[in-house]
């Protein structure tokens, strides 16, 4: 075989391989948003939607009761106190309920924080619909300021039958600067 | 086309007879096999996923 042909072949192969490589780079970049979408659809890892959802109009299922536990935690570095004022509520699937949380800044400076939610068991996460939640945005508090914020939610009636307790945990994190890449999309 | 699918299936199974193999390699372009292979992988993923879903519920 002559050199000319070989050289052309090598060049063709290299170009094709580079295209495959480029495709994989693109795929990698796409994996992050794909993962988020996948999580939101399946509730993978207990993630819930990060913006208000519409009310599911399937009606209230009075035959079932679901216990909803509300747990709060504080991350490192924010002089705030977050208290669930209604730590446990019992709801019927489909019913719209409201619970209250109290945020207090015990520090000496104005600061901002955000409560990041996680639902367990994760199979129940996508059935936990939030109509109104402080977790959709970050909060600002003056020193010594305290405020009560509501969470309006609905457990949709499609919740798997074997889930009778849902735990919603909020972890409070300081928000200094947010780079909208990979994380929150606000 | 059916032959290609059969060959790819054989590949998944990991067994192929020499005669069929010879036939596969009569065709010069591997692209048919690669495309069918990737497609069959997706089918396989879907199938296993379906079985897993059935088993879970």
């Amino acid at each position, binding site marked *: *075989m002559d*050199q*000319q042909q*070989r*050289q052309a*072949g*090598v*060049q063709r*192969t*290299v170009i094709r*391989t*580079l295209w*495959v*490589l480029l495709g*994989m*780079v693109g*795929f*990698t*970049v796409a*994996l*992050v948003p794909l*993962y988020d979408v996948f999580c939101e659809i399946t509730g*993978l*890892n*207990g*993630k819930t939607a*990060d913006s208000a959802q519409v009310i599911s109009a399937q009606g209230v299922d009075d035959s079932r009761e679901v216990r909803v536990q509300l747990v709060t935690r504080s991350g490192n570095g924010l002089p705030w106190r977050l208290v669930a004022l209604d730590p446990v509520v019992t709801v019927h699937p489909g019913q719209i309920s409201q619970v209250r949380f109290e945020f207090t800044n015990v520090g000496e400076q104005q600061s901002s924080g*955000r409560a*990041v939610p996680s639902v367990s068991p994760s*199979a129940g996460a996508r059935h936990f619909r939030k109509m109104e939640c402080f977790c959709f945005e970050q909060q600002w508090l003056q020193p010594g300021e305290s405020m009560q914020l509501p969470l309006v939610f609905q457990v949709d009636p499609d919740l798997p039958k074997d889930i009778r307790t849902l735990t919603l945990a909020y*972890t409070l*994190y*300081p928000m200094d600067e*947010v*780079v909208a*890449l*990979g*994380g*929150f*999309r606000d | 086309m059916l032959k290609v699918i059969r060959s790819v299936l*054989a*590949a*998944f*199974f*990991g*067994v*192929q007879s*020499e005669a069929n*193999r010879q036939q596969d*390699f009569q065709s010069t372009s*591997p692209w048919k096999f690669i495309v069918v*292979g*990737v497609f069959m*992988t997706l089918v396989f993923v879907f199938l*296993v*996923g379906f079985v*897993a*879903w059935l088993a*879970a*519920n």
Partner: protein
Amino acid sequence: MASETSQATLHSSVSDVAAGGAAHASHGPTGLLRWLVTTNHKEIGSLYLIFSLVMLFIGGSMALVIRAELFQPGMQYVQPEFFNQMTTMHGLIMVFGAIMPAFVGLANWMIPMQIGAPDMALPRLNNFSFWLLPVAFGILLSTLFMEGGGPNFGWTFYAPLSTTFAPPSTSFFIMSIHLAGISSILGAINIIATILNLRTPGMRLMDMSLFVWTWLITAFLLIAVMPVLAGVVTMMLMDINFGTSFFDAAGGGDPVLFQHLFWFFGHPEVYIMILPAFGIVSLIVPTFARKRLFGYASMVYATASIALLSFVVWAHHMFTVGLPLTAELFFMYSTMLIAVPTGVKVFNWIATLFRGSITFEVPMLFALGFIVMFTIGGLSGVMLAIVPADFQYHDTYFVVAHFHYVLVPGALFAIMAAVYFWLPKWTGHYASETLGKWHFWLSVIGVNLTFFPMHFSGLAGMPRRIPDYALQFADFNMISSIGGFLFGFSQLIFVWVVIKAVRGGRKAPAKAWEGAEGLEWTVPSPAPLHTFDTPPAYDPQTDSPSRH
């Protein structure tokens, strides 16, 4: 990425081949500079092999630090933070610095000779991809001397331990991974281009040796997953330095995303480290059984099948992160299924041995050791696939035993087998049989003494990556440590064997082994610097490993 540089190198390399392939390097510079600028596939192959041998000893010394500390319960020699750096660096160096470059080195040496090509398709790119490696690992090793020490988060570098809570040197670690990754990608492109275009006239794909076949598939795996690794470390870099939150829940990210991305790379990576080993064993077993490989076609198909399936099993490394039930079941089933084509390979080798005419030269010993011990590692892999049981095995010494069986008497033994197999071709001299046998038997005893007890300590409840442990695990750890030192020091015999063979020894003919087949055995031993400047004659009817 260094795209401009590589583009430039690439173009000049292509024209280099066009210029006749024979011209380069024969009247180039001499001495050290010659090795720095060489474009000869044999010289670059040697560079890769020497580099990986050096890395094997550096990574091995780190393993011995680990084993020394674990010899007895209590903290004796190192502090926990240094211990963590040792486990991390040991893993990174062995995976990216020893095993992978060794296979690339073997590919460089043997692929052109096995397909009748004068050189690799892109010789200058070849040189560039090699020299990226010493730079990458120089940077990686230098992190050990930086403030706060080197990477200490395990070779899997799970976020956020490797991002928010990592030592300051982590950016250098990321840079070295990038460089090693680019090197692998360029190497893979070169190998694909060589195999697809430079085969001697008459050699079809299905006439290639299994080593070439497995490397072709491995190269595609590299192209597919190295960008994912590069992507994941880039995200880490941004999380550390630019305030993004890919893996940080505080900013809306997710640490589990890291694990998904890492293992989407990491599982195919496991096969990158084992497929070329399959190829090597598939050459050596028929040679010393004096019988054609059983089921050549099935072997090729099974390799392709393993490669494809390796993309859909990644989460079996993550069974305890709390995946939904359906996902756990999916990954359990797919993992069990991937064991089937792997098992088929083992059966094929044994069927090759069956009714052969077997002799036990050193390469054969290592290949047989591979089959036995890789199978042990494979079987414990099947156990690990069973999710409920994996909850007990996960992150224990049982896992450590499993993957070391796959990688040490697996991948590493295959590399050793290859070196003994081709040393006569490379140096013109046979390796010393006596020393080689000592090396083999001490290695076998050392490996099993080190890693077999780890199954027991893991099952009994010893977590991995701990510098100190409960008294219950003391005996097994002591044995593992003794075995580790025995294995480590036995490798000095190997160095001596290689040096001896380079300097002299029993002269080898062109066809160094009675049962050997393939084009590499048609050129004289030692192989001259330039082989197959004119493509050799090839008749599939008589020369193909798949002939009837």
